């Protein structure tokens, strides 16, 4: 088990990268704490798999170093890193039985057969495949293969870290929930460092202590789910986390007031005039409809999503989402939207600007 440090790291699949755009991962410095449970979130193609492959040693970074604890493993082969990884597209050894598949990583390490047998049945119970242990892995269904792949990732107890690359994509919702709980238990029991790639934010938020958001090859923010929700450092984080994502409005920042096309919006802090394109960001949770206060808005439609309703409104050409809690009436007299000043963030060129109180 180890703390993982990425120092000065960058990677390009192009042999002679010319511009920033050639890099699949832009230069980054990050520390992943020993025993942390991280969720890695990001849009398709942003470099999540590349990052995992660099940590596990399947890909060698074009620049920078990878450290496990204090040991530099940048050039160490995968086997020497003793790391488990569950691939995005499940790999099973199809000439082996399910049991042999699960035992394979342990056998390769020359573990005691009695221990292997015990460990394999534990894992089989976790992934719910005890009944099929002696079947050949060839010809199993896609979700069974994904479970085997997941099981092989969890079977070794002494690994430095476990990397999960969207491990539950084809598993049905009920089993997904069950497996996620098992992963949580495993984490609590052994305290492995775990990095969990997913597209699904509920999955990320339930699994992880810390969420890492990757955007176009750059780690834009790393923090607790609540922190990322309240203070997105980058507009992408605001948009990607939360449902619906954060509202963004172009605005001129003048001290404690943001001038939008629809009128002035009071801010919770004072800002020095920022450079570049400036926007204010506000979560739909902190927007309220009112009869006269705030910016004039035209309601486009109302969506009922069960626990609450979402109003889509047009504010001077920009679409704004408003979450209306259960029980609150919605009526035609509500023609304005009001932003809670304490929860407004200011962005310049997509990055958050700190205000002074």
């Amino acid at each position, binding site marked *: 088990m180890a703390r993982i440090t990425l120092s000065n790291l960058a990677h390009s699949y192009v042999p002679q990268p010319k511009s920033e755009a050639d890099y699949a991962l832009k230069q980054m410095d990050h520390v992943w704490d020993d025993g942390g449970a991280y969720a890695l979130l990001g849009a398709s193609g942003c470099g999540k798999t590349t990052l995992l*492959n660099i940590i*596990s*040693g*399947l890909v060698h970074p074009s620049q920078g170093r990878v450290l496990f604890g204090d040991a530099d493993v940048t050039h160490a*082969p*995968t*086997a020497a890193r*003793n*790391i*488990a*990884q569950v*691939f995005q*597209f499940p*790999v099973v*050894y*199809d*000439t*082996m039985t399910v049991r042999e598949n699960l035992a*394979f*990583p342990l056998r*390769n*390490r020359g573990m005691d057969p009695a221990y292997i047998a015990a460990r394999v049945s534990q894992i089989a119970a976790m992934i719910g495949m005890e009944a099929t242990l002696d*079947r*050949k892995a*060839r*010809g199993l269904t896609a979700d069974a293969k994904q479970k085997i792949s997941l099981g*092989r990732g969890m079977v070794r107890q002494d690994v430095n870290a476990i990397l999960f690359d969207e491990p539950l994509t084809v598993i049905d919702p009920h089993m997904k929930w069950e497996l996620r709980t098992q992963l949580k238990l495993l984490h609590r029991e052994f305290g492995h460092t775990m990095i969990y790639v997913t597209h699904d934010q509920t999955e990320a938020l339930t699994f992880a202590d810390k969420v890492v958001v990757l955007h176009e090859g750059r780690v834009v923010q790393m923090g607790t789910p609540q922190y990322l929700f309240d203070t997105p450092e980058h507009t992408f984080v605001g948009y990607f986390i939360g449902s619906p994502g954060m509202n963004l409005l172009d605005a001129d920042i003048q001290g404690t007031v943001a001038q939008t096309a629809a009128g002035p919006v009071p801010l919770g802090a004072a800002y020095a005039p920022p450079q570049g394109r400036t926007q204010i960001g506000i979560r739909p949770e902190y927007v309220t409809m009112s009869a006269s206060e705030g910016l004039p808005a035209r309601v486009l439609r109302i969506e009922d999503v069960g626990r609450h309703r979402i109003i889509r409104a047009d504010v001077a050409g920009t679409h704004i989402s408003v979450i209306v809690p259960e029980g609150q009436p919605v009526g035609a007299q509500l023609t304005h939207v009001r932003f809670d000043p304490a929860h407004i963030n200011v962005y310049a060129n997509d990055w958050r600007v700190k205000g002074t109180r």
Partner: protein
Amino acid sequence: MDKTQNNRAWFLVLPVLVLVAFSAVIPLMTVVNYAFNDTFGQNQFFWNGLGWFEDMLQSERMHGAFGRQVLFSAIILAIEVPLGIYIALNMPKSGFWSSFCLVLMALPLLIPFNVVGTIWQIFGRVDIGLLGHSLAALGIDYNYTNDPLDAWLTIIAMDVWHWTSLVALLCYAGLQSIPQAYYQAARIDQASRWSIFRYIELPKMAGVLLIAVLLRFMDSFMIYTEPFVLTGGGPGNSTTFLSIDLVKMAVGQFDLGPAAAFSLMYFLVILLVSWVFYTVMTTLDKQEGK
């Protein structure tokens, strides 16, 4: 869709049947004719029943040729299959050198059989051949025209040189079809080189390997031109394989009856062994799939 049953469609198969009859069945029937009859020429035949077959089954000469043939096929399979796999595993997987190797490997396959025989016949000569002369210069007593062991070694070397490429190329094609993800998973699971070969590469190569073994078996079991050109079956009868002996008997001595009987049995042996190979390998494959 409604399918209409029209038996006249069978006529469409007729041209193929006629062709096959003329190219295979009718010539084979003359062999069958010779095998069961005796003749003193002038197209007069006497029914001989299984006589020729009995003679052949008891013939010392045929036993010898058959033994040599089995030994030869066994040796070259034992060398060419592992060697071919080994070469395929170590070939570059992409880029210029991979194409270069492929072309280089394909070269021996493109040389006509009698030319291969001639090449080695000259190559091995002690007076002018590079191989024979070099060996002699090193003080090794090598002469494939006098020494049966040397003759065997030369023929085996020739066959290995000629045909290992085929096995290697087939295996290479099998290896290329393995997705990179398997190797990555194996690295994560800390598999040894041997485990990777045993559990990932070999299973994926099994299909093409079956074809390679079958082809090499059939080809080597019927080998004629190359040893005929190289040693002519000698010294003595030491490299007289089945087909060489058969030709000697039929064309050299004009014993058409025994030769025909024997060639029928020869044909059946090849068919039988190939069938056994195929069934064993495919059922193994099916068991794996369970």
